[in-house]
């Protein structure tokens, strides 16, 4: 039964204009990045890019990780349940031999599989473009681990948006609320790091690590910094300043935020009444 809801959710998400726009942005973003890099004429910039040519696939793989990918996750997850309430289609499913738990699980997994596919598309484009425009690439053995960490770390905001979609039951409000948490958390993180560097007090950095944005944005960078010759690219594509945390901490906080959000969302969906169409 779960697979029927998963395939329905993937089909539903693709049918939404919002998701189609996201996919279009993804393609433009990835292709544009590489075309821009290949068109650099300045000698100063060329002297930086030249030694990095063999690992430029990392740029396309990690650039969306700081912000775009989380917005994509939020966009998919915030509408997952809330749009069913808004369209009044929850009744259709819950008056079938299907438990609320199966429905909520199918919706969560369906959206997440679509998200993985979108990131898969991004990674594929970055590999194809870097090969086409910059020749052979190295460090490709890191791809599976990096792919896993990117999709795993995105669970934090995917789960938070899914939870807010269920609690608020309005897709636009849920999207706004989840995006605000992401942006707010990133800004607070940046301020805390700035204060920490200013005061030489590590306590501010430790607080920053606990914020939901840290594990979500940092985890793949912690791995990518170990790829030979890639440290400069990693620094360049990381929009927000690096905090010296461990991969274990990043795993721990990602799991904590994701599990808590999913638990609240499922508890709410299982225990609350299903209203008539919310308009």
């Amino acid at each position, binding site marked *: *039964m779960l697979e*029927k809801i998963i395939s*329905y959710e993937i*089909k*539903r998400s693709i*049918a939404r204009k919002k998701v189609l726009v996201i996919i279009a942005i993804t393609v433009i973003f990835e292709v544009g990045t590489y075309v821009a890099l290949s068109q650099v004429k300045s000698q100063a910039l060329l002297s930086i890019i030249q030694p990095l040519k063999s690992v430029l696939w990392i740029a396309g793989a990690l650039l969306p990780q700081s912000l775009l990918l989380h917005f994509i996750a939020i966009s998919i997850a915030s509408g997952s349940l809330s749009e069913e309430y808004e*369209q*009044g*289609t929850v*009744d*259709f*499913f*819950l*008056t*079938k*031999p*299907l*438990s609320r738990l199966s429905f909520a699980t199918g919706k969560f997994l369906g959206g997440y599989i679509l998200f993985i596919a979108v990131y898969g598309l991004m990674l594929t484009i970055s590999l194809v473009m870097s090969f086409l425009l910059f020749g052979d690439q190295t460090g490709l053995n890191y791809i599976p681990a990096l792919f896993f960490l990117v999709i795993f770390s995105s669970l934090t905001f995917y789960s938070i948006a899914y939870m807010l979609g269920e609690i608020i039951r309005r897709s636009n409000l849920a999207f706004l609320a989840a995006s605000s948490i992401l942006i707010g958390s990133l800004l607070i993180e940046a301020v805390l790091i700035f204060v920490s560097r200013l005061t030489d007090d590590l306590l501010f950095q430790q607080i920053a690590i606990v914020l939901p944005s840290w594990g979500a944005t940092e985890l793949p960078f912690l791995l990518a910094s170990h790829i030979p010759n890639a440290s400069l690219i990693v620094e360049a594509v990381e929009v927000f300043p690096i905090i010296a945390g461990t991969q274990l901490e990043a795993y721990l906080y990602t799991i904590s935020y994701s599990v808590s959000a999913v638990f609240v969302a499922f508890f709410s969906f299982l*225990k609350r*009444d*299903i209203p*008539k*169409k919310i308009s």
Partner: protein
Amino acid sequence: MIEIVNVSKRYGERIALDSVSITMDKPLIYGILGPNGAGKTTLLRVALGLIYPEMGEVRIMGKSPFKEKGIFKEIGYVQELPNLPPFLSGEEVLKLSARLKGIPEFSVNEYLDLVGMSNHAKKKIAKYSKGMVQRIALAEALLGDPKVIVMDEPNIGTDPALNVHIRDVLREKRKSGSLIVMTTHELEEVRKLCNRVFLIFAGRVFYAGDPEDLVARFLGLRVIITSRTPEKVIEVAKGLGFIKSTEIRDGKVIVLMGEDRREEFLKTLIEDNVSVIDYSTDLSLEDAYINALIEASKDVRKNN
């Protein structure tokens, strides 16, 4: 087949259902009547396991719709102004429903035919008119020949031809042993279709019985007589104790009886040599319904 026992539900301070108990145990067509906000839809949604009651219990074919979801294989449901996934076609909606109910997908064609939607099956729901959505929703509810069909205001936004079609389909389903329950504001629909009605007011069941009894209890039986001597009809009628009122309207005598004693009344008119050209009965369900609501509201005020 549907048992609702002592069910109560509140929305904040407002009581939506107040110890409602209803039993629908025969394969008949049941109508749930009541003004807006009376609790009809809440009652259906509790019965379908969509809304949790604060108190009480619901059983469909002996099983709880909250715990035993397998029972939904035997339930068809038509929402008020049905909401179906707009990006799917009518055929895809039926196929999805068939997959969820564990019914072979090829059977959907039969149901598309039944509701006259075979030619529009490939169109997206978003492109359908209200009537077309209603037809698909009906086909979806009938899929797999469920033993219980629940319909919330099935006549909203439908044209008379579709209403006749829905009525015919439902009568067929009742004959083949399905129990049908519908909420409606259309009293004409109730009169033509329902075998039993439940009148709900302020979250309470105020009346349960057949539609004719509702008329007899809250209005009485209205007899319309065409006569060459209407004054004489009135004179005879006034001498009978069971006649509540008489009036002449458009040359016809309208006699209101407190109880169904039509035969006795006609016999008296003939014995007294009163001219009777035409004699008909008008079961004014609408008037009875209004009277019933007035009594219900008095009752609620008294109890409060």
